[in-house]
């Protein structure tokens, strides 16, 4: 309880409904972990397959790529928008990055030839993925602000366009045979102790979550994003350049999706134009489960991270219990519907 400048308490008593609405998602995460810990040995002949360092790190690794995209999606949705093209951006980034690393081996400058294998090639590959992702997001932002398209329609269009470009330039084939340094680093692990190694992807995801939590809650970027999502016209008459800010948000989402694309490329060791299918579904699911409102004006990075962990846990649980992977989509879809129902109840609870 903090006291305000006028000496009155600033916090109200929270009702049980509000409490559940705010922290319910963390409760879901805890229940999932506990029940998996209990159920895993019962259903799999006494073997504890779930609560092992190895498996838990697998859960984090599975969550990492989705979490990175979902952080960008959190900003876009908080501003009242949506980005359906992230899955296609992942594919395009992967294909282009792999092709550049495979085909551009040397580089001439002032008569000198530099080799682009090894670490320089890896950096170049990462730069291509991130650059392409940012440009794609920038294009989304321009379509939405300059042509006055709804974000849903604009990114539905670019979802097809980006995927199509990836298919065209790769001629529909996977791209192999690129820089091993790239794979070694971005799919690598950093040892914590003798038995535990933390994947680079997880470390990157944690850093991104912290940085963009800070930006959403403590800076002008976050405040303007919330203001635009809350009331775009109010933000405009307050003198904020709403259009420029929105373009920036889609570029940010594309930038983070580019990082995710690079990490996926390293992990799967090939760039494929069909990768990233349904990534938008998983990212939006994580965001909505985490309490960010689809109507805009309110967003939570910590909630999004919990959401991404829940999706990863559900997938992990189904793998442990040998549920066919096709069912996973049914479950994730159901989870989205459930999350939106929860969001509506939250809204009712906060209206008094």
């Amino acid at each position, binding site marked *: 309880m903090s006291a305000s400048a006028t000496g009155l308490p*600033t916090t109200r008593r929270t009702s049980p409904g509000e409490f559940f609405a705010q922290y319910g998602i963390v409760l879901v995460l805890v229940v999932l972990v506990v029940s998996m810990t209990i159920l895993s040995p019962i259903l799999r002949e006494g073997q504890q397959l779930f609560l092992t360092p190895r498996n838990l790190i697998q859960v984090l690794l599975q969550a990492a790529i989705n979490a990175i995209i979902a952080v960008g999606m959190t900003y876009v949705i908080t501003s009242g928008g949506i980005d359906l093209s992230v899955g296609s951006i992942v594919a395009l980034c992967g294909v282009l990055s792999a092709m550049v690393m495979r085909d551009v081996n040397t580089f001439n400058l002032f008569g000198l030839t530099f080799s682009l294998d090894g670490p320089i090639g890896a950096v170049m590959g990462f730069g291509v993925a991130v650059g392409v992702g940012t440009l794609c997001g920038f294009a989304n932002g321009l379509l939405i602000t300059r042509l006055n398209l709804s974000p849903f329609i604009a990114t539905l269009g670019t979802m097809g366009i980006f995927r199509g470009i990836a298919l065209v330039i790769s001629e529909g084939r996977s791209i192999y045979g690129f820089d091993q340094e790239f794979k070694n680093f971005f799919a690598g692990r950093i040892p914590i102790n003798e038995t535990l190694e933390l994947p680079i992807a997880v470390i990157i995801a944690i850093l991104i979550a912290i940085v963009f939590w800070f930006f959403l809650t403590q800076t002008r970027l976050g405040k303007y994003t919330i203001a635009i999502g809350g009331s775009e016209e109010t933000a405009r008459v307050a003198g904020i350049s709403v259009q420029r800010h929105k373009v920036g948000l889609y570029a940010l989402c594309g930038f983070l999706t580019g990082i995710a694309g690079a990490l996926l490329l390293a992990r799967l060791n090939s760039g494929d134009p069909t990768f990233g299918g349904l990534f938008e579904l998983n990212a939006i699911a994580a965001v909505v489960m985490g309490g960010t409102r689809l109507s805009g004006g309110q967003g939570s990075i910590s909630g999004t991270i919990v959401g991404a962990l829940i999706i990863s846990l559900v997938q992990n649980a189904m793998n442990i219990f040998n549920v066919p992977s096709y069912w996973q989509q049914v479950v994730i879809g159901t989870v989205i519907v459930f999350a939106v129902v929860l969001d509506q109840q939250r809204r009712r609870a906060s209206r008094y």
Partner: protein
Amino acid sequence: MNNLEKLLTIDHISKAYGAVQALKSVSFDLFRGEIVALVGDNGAGKSTLVKILSGLIQPTSGNLIFKGRPVHFRTPADALAYGIETVYQHLALVEQLDVADNVYLGRETYRWGAVGRWLGVLDRRHMREQTATALSQLHIKIPAPTLPVSSMSGGQRQAVAIGRAVTWGRELLILDEPTAALGVEETEQVLQMIEKLRDQQGISMLIISHNMQDVYRIADRIVVLRQGRHVATINKPDTSPQEIVAYITGAKEAQVAPV
């Protein structure tokens, strides 16, 4: 009025939307420290004029002269930079932000020096303290600057919105239907606040209202628009609410010759 300083001259302002002429060569002056009511029926061009004065749209032709110099407002930020603040009926505050975040919306202060400014790290403590001070100086009572706007009453919101505008609007305050959404008691509070602002701080105000009683009570002069035309400018002592209504409806012919 000649002894008063001219603040803003609206000089033959016209605005066309395609074939529709929303404003037809409207001209009048605003003087320092007076309250001018802008009245007219729906579609008379009031909102169009307000949008032009606040930089949301640009006139098709005509000039704005501010303190003797021609000005062009290309964006709302331009008008705000001249100390012209507009409180819109429905667009005053962002519900999801708290009072201090709203008062400082678009005018944030930052901490952590140059790095903080570059990153846009908000100095919320400073903004909250300043908000509490500014609002209490205007005798606006809210429980706390950290209160989310969504939990406040209509009167509180309007008071905060006007308080926000006064905090920044050094020259001219434009109020769009300031009492339309309020109850009797809240309306009275807001009207008293407006009168106090003029009498104690000498701020010029342009008030758009449908409520003839309110207009007649607080305005020094009344500007009437009808179908995009400026039909009358009347000093309050020379008129009655009935006469104003007659000008609005067209029962009384235009006093200002078309130019």
